[in-house]
Structure formats: structure tokens, C-alpha cells
């Protein structure tokens, strides 16, 4: 075998593949494939990525150009799949709250646009640099968008089914860890630490193993059918909301007048 990975990394790789297989089996057995098709596709893609990467590394070596290209393309594909899987879970969690889902959807779109603009500006035409920044940027914006959505969900007192909550939080946790890993390892430890690559892989894979264990545990539990929440007629919001905002503005003005703090903007 022409790979330069340590045996620890290889064991972790095998454990990760086994856990992904377990998650996939749970999805099939519990009949969740139809409910979570994009999440299932993400797990399958990840499994394929692991097996194919292993084959490519074995055939060409992990330091070859072919392996480099394949690894980045595979990573890009799974990142896109992850984004779709996350949107799917968010949509399922908020299916009953159409108005708020429309807000979340816009928030996600704005975040995606923001990351694209940032990467385009930061890379300045340098493709390989853009690739590295894109990976960290993706994870950063992915985590930020997801945290923003979770904050919004909490802001509006929406009770999300625990299984979906665990799936979303795990996605977010993994992205946060990747941002920290890429920053701390590449930025601070790389110049000093000779085994930087192996250490990076071990920590990244350990955190992914944690995520997989959380997913397996969450998906193994039955997901109760969501009861439809009470819905108000659409016209009520358009009547009530401006009125409430007017009242809030009036109270704000009272406070402002307390010591003439300055006129609030309309």
C-alpha cells in the first residue's frame, strides 16, 4: 500500500465507514429513506467517498496529483450534498410553520450568496488558494447560517422534533470543529509541528465519529408524527403585526422622551 497514513488514521477511517453503514442501515430499516432522501444521499455519498478515496490512495498514493484532485472533487460533492441534506431537515422541522420557514429560507439564501462573494473576493483568481479558503469559508458560513436558523427557531418558540434537532446540531458542531481545526492547525501549528497532517486527520475523524454516533442514536428512536400546529388566518398577521409594531414604537418613544435621548428612526 502506497499511502502514508498512520495505522490510527486507517482504523478511524474504517470505524467511520462502519458507522456510516450503520446510520444508512438504520435509515433503511426505519423507513426514513423516503422521509429523508437527501440526508440518505449524503450518507451514501460519504460512504462512496471513503471507499473510492481509499482505492485512489492505494492506487496512486495520497501525495499524488490524481489523489489531490479526486479528494477535492469528492469533498466539494459531499459539501453540496450536506447543504441539501441540512435544508431538507430544516424544512421538515419547520414544515408546519410556513411563514417562519419563508424567513429561514431567505436567511439561508443570503448566507450562501455571502459566502460565494467572500470566496470570490478573497481568492482573487488563485484557484488552489480559493479551494482552501472555500473549504474553511464553507464550514464557517454553514455553521453561522445553521446557528442563525436555530436562534430564529428559538426566537419564535418553535419546538423542533429532537431527532431533527440532533441532526442539525451535529452538522453544525462538525463544521465548527472543522473551522477551528483548519485555523488552529494550519495557522498556528503547521510551521512547528511535523506530524500536522496526521494530527489534523485524527481530530477531524474523531469529531465526525462523534457526529455519526449522535446520528445513529437519534435516528434509532421513533420520530413521532408532528401534529399540525394552530394556524391563524393570513389577514390577521397583516392587521396585527403593524399594530403591535406601532405600540412597540410608542413605548420606545416613551423611553426616549425620558431624557430626550434622540428621536428613533422610523
Amino acid at each position, binding site marked *: 500500500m502506497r499511502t502514508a497514513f498512520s495505522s490510527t488514521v486507517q482504523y478511524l477511517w474504517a470505524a467511520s465507514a462502519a458507522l456510516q453503514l450503520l446510520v444508512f442501515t438504520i435509515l433503511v430499516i426505519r423507513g426514513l429513506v423516503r422521509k429523508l432522501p437527501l440526508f440518505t444521499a449524503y450518507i451514501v455519498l460519504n460512504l462512496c467517498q471513503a471507499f473510492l478515496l481509499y482505492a485512489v490512495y492505494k492506487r496512486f498514493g495520497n501525495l499524488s496529483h490524481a489523489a489531490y484532485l479526486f479528494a477535492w472533487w469528492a469533498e466539494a460533492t459531499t459539501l453540496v450534498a450536506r447543504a441539501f441534506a441540512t435544508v431538507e431537515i430544516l424544512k421538515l422541522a419547520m414544515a408546519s410553520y410556513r411563514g417562519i420557514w419563508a424567513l429561514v429560507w431567505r436567511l439561508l439564501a443570503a448566507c450562501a450568496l455571502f459566502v460565494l462573494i467572500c470566496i470570490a473576493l478573497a481568492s482573487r483568481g488563485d484557484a488552489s488558494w480559493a479551494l482552501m479558503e472555500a473549504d474553511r469559508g464553507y464550514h464557517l458560513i454553514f455553521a453561522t447560517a445553521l446557528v442563525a436558523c436555530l436562534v430564529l427557531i*428559538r*426566537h419564535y418558540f*418553535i419546538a423542533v422534533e429532537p431527532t431533527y434537532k440532533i441532526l442539525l446540531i451535529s452538522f453544525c458542531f462538525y463544521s465548527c470543529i472543522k473551522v477551528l481545526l483548519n485555523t488552529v492547525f494550519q495557522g498556528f501549528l503547521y510551521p512547528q509541528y511535523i506530524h500536522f497532517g496526521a494530527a489534523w486527520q485524527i481530530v477531524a475523524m474523531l469529531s465526525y465519529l462523534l457526529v455519526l454516533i449522535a446520528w445513529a442514536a437519534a435516528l434509532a428512536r421513533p420520530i413521532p408524527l408532528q401534529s399540525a400546529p394552530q*394556524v391563524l388566518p393570513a389577514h390577521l*398577521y*397583516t392587521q396585527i*403585526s403593524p399594530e403591535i409594531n406601532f405600540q412597540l414604537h410608542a413605548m*420606545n418613544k416613551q*423611553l426616549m422622551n*425620558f431624557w430626550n435621548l434622540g428621536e428613533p428612526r422610523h
Partner: protein
Amino acid sequence: MNYSLLAFAGLGVLLLAVLAWLSFSRLRNKPEAILSSRAERECRHISYLPHIKQALSDSDIDFLKTRGSPSLLKRIRKDRRRIAITYLEALRSDFEKLLHFARVVAVMSPEVEVVQELQSARLHLEFSYRYYLIYLRLVFGVAPSQALGNLSDIISALTVRMETAITELGERAALGAEFSPFNGGGMDAS
């Protein structure tokens, strides 16, 4: 030291901290429970308005200046400050209840306007900023006595109409839910 790396690391840690808070904290109420709770919709502090107005009226201070001792005047001023702080806290409580109600209406509506939601978020931020500014001034005693005297005028502008309006809104919302085609029932339908 590379500042952009520090910024990335800081953001990562911050996101993890927020995530931990979101993961381990629980929601206090469900939207439906909040909407059907009359106590949540009411701004009860408004009903104490006449008493507060009386306590803060300038005539009391003028009377004490002519008849009372300086120590009594000092104590009264201190009490007035305490009343002002209590009122401020009550005003905040009323504001938050109204905001709470607005969110519940939004979450139960099939369509939500971004502009309205952003406006309510902006008002919340503005209110919080002003509230803490005034609160600190009162706590540290840098509030001019004139301002304390003016409090009665300020609160009288915040009329009892608000309490009536909020109760009415709650009733309208509940009525709307009862006849909503999405529900197949009233507020208790599941």
C-alpha cells in the same frame, strides 16, 4: 500573530458556545400556550399608572420643600428614584410581553413579512439600548430631579389604551384561529 486567524478561531469558539447554549437550554412555552394565556397578553403594570403619577407629582416635592425637613426631602427623592426604576422595569416587562405576543402571532401565521419582523427586531434593540442607558443613570443617581418629575407626563402618554388593544388583539387572534380553515377546530384542536 495573524489577526485573521485569530478572528476565525474566535468565531469558531463563539459558534460552538452558542451551539452549546442552543443544545442544552429548553423552550419555556409553546406558541399556542402563550397565545391562549391571558396573562401573557396583558400589560398589567399600566393599571398602577395613577398611583405612580401621584407618587411622582411635582406638587408633593414643592409641598415638602416648604413644610418638610431636608432629610425627609432626601428620603422622598430616594424613594422617587426607586419608583422610577420599578416603573422602568415594568415598562420593559410590558414591552417584552408585547414582543412575545408579536412573535407568537408571526409563528402561527402562514405568511410573514420580513419588513415587519425586522422592524420589531430593530425596535427591540433600540428599546434595550435606551432601557439600560436610563437604568444606569437612575442607579448611579445622575438623573436630574426634573427628569424624575417629568416621568408622570411620560407615562400618562402611554395610555391604558394599550392594555385594551392587546387584550383585543388576543381575542381577535383566538377568534381567527377558531375559524381558520387550517385548524379544523378551535384553539384546542390538535
